[in-house]
């Protein structure tokens, strides 16, 4: 089942794979009675609870991974943008308007650079850091999700949520930051034995 596979992949970011499989099986079995909405909530709750358990057990490692992930992401993103500018991709996407975000191609280019930076960060983190739990990409993924949620809540609390910002927080951040990052980490895990760099515990 696709949802079981998805749950197993997500859970394997925070627990060992065989344990993730058993939990995904439990959730699938119970979801037959309770429905897909319960499944989604239970999965999100289980991933969150287990991530924070990992964080409690290895705070330094988690914070180290977050710092390394952020530094790596910023470096990669700057590299991608500079590379794009040097190759003329940015100017072509902007279409001579001068502003990089005024046209649809420019927005696509902008989103693609974010996704490439996030995927590369996940790939590199997954290759150089000893596998979890938690997965090396999880601290940064949780950080992005927290930032987006906090920004969305702040907008709502201030009484001025715009459709554009809401779209960025609820769709853009997951699509261009979190999913590519996690996909990069998963790709790294499938490439072979990583773990050349031990993160501080």
């Amino acid at each position: 089942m696709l949802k079981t596979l998805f749950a197993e992949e997500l859970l394997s970011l925070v627990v060992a794979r065989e344990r993730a499989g058993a939990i995904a099986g439990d959730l699938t079995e119970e979801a037959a009675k309770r429905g897909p909405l319960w499944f989604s909530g239970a999965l999100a709750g289980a991933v969150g609870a287990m991530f924070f358990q990992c964080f409690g057990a290895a705070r330094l490692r988690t914070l180290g991974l977050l710092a390394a992930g952020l530094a790596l992401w910023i470096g990669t993103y700057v590299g991608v943008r500079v590379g794009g500018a040097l190759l003329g991709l940015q100017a072509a996407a902007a279409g001579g308007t001068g502003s990089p975000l005024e046209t649809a191609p420019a927005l696509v280019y902008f989103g693609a650079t974010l996704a490439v930076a996030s995927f590369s960060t996940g790939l590199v983190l997954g290759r150089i850091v000893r596998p979890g739990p938690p997965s090396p990409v999880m601290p940064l993924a949780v950080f992005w999700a927290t930032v987006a949620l906090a920004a969305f809540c702040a907008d709502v609390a201030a009484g001025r949520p715009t459709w554009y910002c809401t779209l960025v927080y609820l769709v853009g951040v997951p699509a261009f930051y979190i999913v590519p990052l996690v996909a990069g980490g998963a790709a790294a895990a499938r490439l072979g034995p990583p773990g050349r760099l031990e993160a501080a515990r």
Partner: protein
Amino acid sequence: MARTTNLGEFEQIVLLAILRLGDEAYGVAIREEIRCRTGRSTAPGALYTTLDRLEQKGFVSSRLGDPTPERGGRAKRFYAVSAAGAAAVERAQRSYQSLLKGLRIFENKHA
């Protein structure tokens, strides 16, 4: 090796549920047993983190069963309480009993 440590309330509930279920103690059954016996609805995340913690303390052990189709082809993970776990539950329950002994808080309700 189990460390000598106190059990939290939910840890005791989980250990007692596993003891009641015997060989059939896996995630879904444990949650259901807790719900039936205590009326308490347990979040899956809370249960799995507690089971993980109990296993690290050496109070429970686990083994994988066979994969089944209704579980998307995933195996059940069955839990069993270790001797150290049973002793820890007994110790905790004795502490409660000792604290309750001599108290008259229930007399009016049962009169």
